[in-house]
Every structure is written in C-alpha cells, then in structure tokens.
C-alpha cells in the first residue's frame, strides 16, 4: 500500500511510459518479420512458396499465354517467413517494415483471385498434358 502510494506520487514527476504512436514514429526491430518482397528477376515460378505457405496467402497465376504472376495477400499472410526460407533462388525477402494498411487502392478480392488461380492452373495442366502427349506421339 505504502509502496504503491509512494510510486504513484513519484510518478507525477516522472516521464510517462506511454508511446504516443502516430505522433512519435515507432521503429520496428532489425529482424522484424514484416512484409514479403518479391524479386521478379530471380523468380523461376517453381511454386514452392505457394506450396509451403500455411495460410495460402501466396498464389501464382499462370495466364493462358503462359506468362506468370506472383500474388501475395498481406491480409491473409501470417508473416511466418516460411516462403522466404524455402525459396531456392532467394527471390523472396522479408523486410522489417509493416505491410501497408489496406484501403480501396490496394485491396483486392482475394477469394476471386484464388478461384481464378485454380481455374488457370487447371487449364495450364491441361496444356501441359497436351504438350507431353504431342511430344510422345511425335
């Protein structure tokens, strides 16, 4: 009781411990697991990151003209860094910055993307199958 009383009165003359966040910027630690950055040049689209991602926040879309797109959902990502560790080519890195807040400009309908990716993947498999068949027959 007395201890807390003294602490309370002395606290009046101490600097408060509150961090007034938006006014005082908050520096993340050096190794903070923040947003995932993709390096297009190194990526070979091996799909390993998509496979190991626990929540399924990475999707690779294989378009009908065989161009590939790497998509990452910052809202679904749990920032475990499993994709970065498993990337054989070092195409993925993890920054120590927070991912930006989602608003209208960068928010996407992820379920739509997932469905689209599944559909395109089926088409791609079909194409591969046809190609290998053509190879065999030739």
């Amino acid at each position, binding site marked *: 009781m007395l201890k807390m009383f003294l602490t309370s009165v002395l606290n*009046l003359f101490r600097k408060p411990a509150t961090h007034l966040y938006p006014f005082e910027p908050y520096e993340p630690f050096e190794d903070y697991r923040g947003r995932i950055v993709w390096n297009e040049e190194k990526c070979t689209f091996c799909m390993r990151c998509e496979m190991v991602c626990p929540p399924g926040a990475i999707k690779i879309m294989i378009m009908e003209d065989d161009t590939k797109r790497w998509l990452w959902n910052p809202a679904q990502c749990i920032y475990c860094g499993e994709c970065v560790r498993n990337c054989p080519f070092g195409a993925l890195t993890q920054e120590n910055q927070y991912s930006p807040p989602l608003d209208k400009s960068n928010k996407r309908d992820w379920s739509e993307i997932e469905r689209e990716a599944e559909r395109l993947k089926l088409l791609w498999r079909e194409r591969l199958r046809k190609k290998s068949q053509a190879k065999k027959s030739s």
Partner: protein
Amino acid sequence: MDFLLPASLLVLSPLIGGLLEGTFRKLNARMQNRVGPPIVQPFYDLFKLLQKRPILINNYHVIMAYAHLVAMVIALATFLLGGDFLLVIFFHGMSLALLSMGAYGVRSSYSQVGATRELLHILAVEPVLIMIAANLYLNTGTFLLSEIFNSNFLFKSMPLAFLALVAVLPAKLKKSPFDVSEAHQEIIGGPEIEYSGPFYAPIYLAKWLEEVLSAGLIAMFFLGNPVITLIAISVTFTFVLAVDNSTARLSYWDMVKYTWEISIPLVLVNLVLNYVGVL
C-alpha cells in the same frame, strides 16, 4: 457581492466540475505512469453522449436519472448560496437514493446489485456528514452556511472532523478502495449500467457536480485566504487520488465498517474536544 460570487460559481459549476474531472483523469494517468487524456476530455465525452441515439428502457428509469441530477443541483445550490448545511446533506443523500431507485427500476441484475450497494454508500457517507454538521454547529452555533462561511480557518478547531471527511471522500467520489457501487470489474458500473447515450449524460454531469460539492466541503474548512483554500483542495484531491491508486477495492461491508469505525469516532473525538474546550 455576497450574492454574485456564489451565483457565478453555481452557473459555472458544470465547467469547473468538468475541468476538475479532466484534471482527475490526467493526474490519475500520470500516477499510473501514463500520459492520459486531455483535460477537456470530459466535455468531449458529454457532447458525444448527448449526440448518441437514445435507447429508452422505461420512463421511470430515465426520470430518476434526471431527478438525481436535479437533487444534486439543489444540494450544490443550497451549499453555494449559503443555505442550511443539513439541507445540503439531505439533498445529497436523496440524489444518491434517487439514483438507486432508478437502478431498481430495470431488470438487469448488475443494476439491482449496484443499487443495493449505492444505498450502502449512503449508509457510509451521510452519517459522517451529519456528524460533521453537528460539529460545525458546536463551533459556529448555526447550520446556516452563509454564516459558517464567515468563519475563518475552521480547520484549526476541527482537524479531526476534516480527517474524517477525507476518509469518506473515496466512498463519496467512488474511488478505490470504496468504489463498490461502481465496481467496474464486478458489476460494470452498477446503477449506471443500463443508462446510455443522452440518458447517461445527466448522471455524468451529476458526477461533476458532486466533485464540485466535495471541493466546496473541503474549502469550508480552509476559508479566509483563497490561496490556502486552493492549496488545501488540490492537496486533498491529490491525496485521495493517490489512495485510489494504491489500494485494491474492498468489499461493501468493509466500506461501511471502515467509515463507521474510523470516520465517525474521529468526528466524535473532535466533538468532545471542542466541547471540553481543548481545541
């Protein structure tokens, strides 16, 4: 002049009360090593409450909230305009009783439990105030505050009564260790729980007025030099806040027990000492 100062204090009392409440919060936060809200935060709260959508439970419940405010205003007005001190005590007790009557008017069990505890608050606080009034009468020969206010530095003759007042202030202002009727972690605000939006605003306002009334009660003991009065008020309130921040909540029986075992004997001793002529 005699009328102007009290009247202007009465008119300004919501403003003073709001600032007092804001200062309390700020001090409270600083004692907990936080920054705390701005001092005008209570006014923001009040305006926000008034803007909210009214949700009426029943008429009786709401009328009691306003009656609570009105009784508190009358108590404060009587006090500031120099009425009878007993009247102040009765109206103060009545306003608390009205609050608990309103709380009994709804089916929420938190509200009901809180109302019972609120009545225990009256049981704890009012006898001490009445004893202080008796002591005042012994010293000044009157219950009329306009005449009591003319006396100089009453603290000299009744220090123990002042200590008794400080001892019941936590119960009166609903601060730890005796915030049993609010008891946020048990009954979530008790009698106030079912009030919302604009219907909570009168109770919120009454709380400010109660703080002004408490400040007035403290000032009563230190009249004469305005600087000393202000210092006395701020030191007492800081002390009460520091006690608030250094105790856990005790049970409701403890509250009644402590006030009756400590505050009332203190006033009684003071009474006897005054009667004998030591003080």
